[in-house]
């Protein structure tokens, strides 16, 4: 059992805390002169607490969790890419097409048969689109389907 995870996290948080605290000291004095509680007081307190917390994590780390390797990690990266690409294509392609692709790919990668997966995607996309655009009159982007 190693405890590298907590140590790395602790280190990262320490850097964050110092940067956060340092940035707070750089702000110009607010208009009207300094008071006891300025914009930097609270962030400075937080930075101190986080420094203490991160040091504790590095000194007394918990044992590591099981991190995904190989195929699991690969699947995770794929899911993430799908989510980002979905966001990217949502407006240009339109809701229905983008959602069919995204939901379909996700459930296919989670183990569904491809045809069934994309069918689920298409069905849920159409239902949600109709529900939102006509039922609730909240417009989702129609994208390529706009011409129809």
């Amino acid at each position: 059992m190693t405890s590298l995870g907590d140590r790395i996290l602790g280190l990262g948080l320490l850097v964050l805390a110092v940067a956060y605290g340092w940035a707070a000291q750089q702000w110009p004095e607010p208009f009207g002169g300094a008071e006891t509680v300025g914009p930097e007081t609270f962030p400075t307190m937080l930075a101190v607490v986080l420094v203490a917390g991160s040091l504790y994590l590095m000194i007394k780390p918990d044992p590591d969790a099981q991190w995904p390797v190989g195929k699991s990690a690969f699947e995770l990266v794929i899911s993430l890419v799908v989510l980002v690409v979905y966001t990217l294509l949502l407006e240009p392609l339109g809701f229905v097409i983008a959602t069919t692709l995204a939901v379909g790919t996700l459930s296919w990668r989670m183990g569904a048969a491809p045809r069934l997966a994309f069918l689920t995607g298409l069905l849920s996309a159409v239902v949600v689109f109709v529900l939102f655009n006509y039922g609730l009159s909240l417009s989702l982007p129609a994208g390529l389907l706009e011409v129809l």
Partner: protein
Amino acid sequence: METLGFLMDGFAVALTPYNLMFALFGAFVGTLIGCLPGLGPANGVAILIPLAFTLGLPPETAMILLTAVYAGAMYGGRISSILLNIPGDEPAMMTCLDGYPMAQKGRAADALAVSAIASFAGGLIGTIGLIMLAPVLAKFALTFGPAEYFALFLLAFATLGGITGKNPMKTVVAATLGIMISTVGIDISTGTQRYTFGVLELYEGIDFILAIVGLFAISELLFFVESRMGRGRDKMNVGKLTLTMKELVMTIPTQLRGGVLGFISGVLPGAGASLGSFISYTLEKQVVGKKGKFGEGDIRGVVAPEAGNNGASSGALVPMLTLGVPGSGTTAVLLAMLISLNITPGPLMFTQNADIVWGVIAALLIGNVLLLVLNIPLVGFFVKLLSVPPMYLLPIVTMVAFVGIYSISHSTFDLYFMVAFGVAGYFLRKLDIPLVPIILGLLLGPEMEKNLGHALVLSDGDWSVLWASPLAMGLWIVASLGLILPYLIGPLLRRRMNAAMKESPVSD
């Protein structure tokens, strides 16, 4: 008597057909959320917030919807506990102990029915407790000054991990991270830009709704992808209802005890629903003694924890409604809804937004009745849904989360942010950093800073004002106990809970 009048007004709000419809919808969706493994109550309520928001629901309707979902999730958690020996949510863990053996003996239908009744009894007792306690506490809370509030917020963070929490330091780190995120944006009192890096979207701060949805929903998807449990489970057979009136009458004392104990542990900071159901179960075992067959499918072993966790879920609303300080993940998410509806939670809410508070409370009562009515005949339907494989369900849930966030602002910038929060949530959960304190930090951070500022302005910069009054001092002491106690008695309690799980012959 005054309370009764308010409650009647509350019923008038909750019983309008429009609100009743949303309560019914919420109760239904809540049960679904509760019974699907991996979609906990906090998660479910979080996904529904943007929807409630974009639907443009009036505040009381939005709150009624979410409270009904909350109550429903507590009902739903038991279904998979009983049928699959897998708790749908954490508080339903104790229900596995006797519920699953009952199901194995072919009495699944009985276990489901009796646990629905127990949930109802627990929820009812808890709500009655809430009605009696909340106004008193709200009146008391009016005496709180800024220093007391500051201490109270600290108390909330310190006890959030719960007495059974693993590493209190991680709770502290999580809470600090949450508060830090909440400081991004333009400082309200001075107008200084903090951590905006000149990005226009950050000037108004980070919307906690997208943080919550990202942290919960997206990280949940990633966890499922990793564990690859996409396949779902085999169909279950519920069987016929053979519950007799005599058995039901026999469990009444158990229901009362469980409900009361659950309510108390729901109100207390740091206890929560999981401990509520645990205490009710252990106490029941001791009261009944050798006569019971606990762990082998004793009906009281199903009743006690279910009454306990539903009592606790109503109890947890007490600090949230009266002090604006939630004690659990789901109530924290409910608080997020309140804040985004521009309602300042806390004692003033009882006078300024009486219709909302009492509408919600009345909706809890109505919701419990609806849930009982829904749960007994429809249990077969919920069981069927339980066998819908997550590989179809989770992508759809994720898509709904995307739609919800997108429809708030119509900007894809928010969606990227949400995904980023999801990834962060995944890593933090992997590292055992709890997410709920982050959410609570996000929500309470601005209030905390405001109160700190007020306290120091009033005292002319004297920091000792923060612990000057006896009340504030007391809160500080309880807060430090909240951090120290888990080290002292936490391992003991955890061992007992584990031991209780192992004693049962079926746990594998």
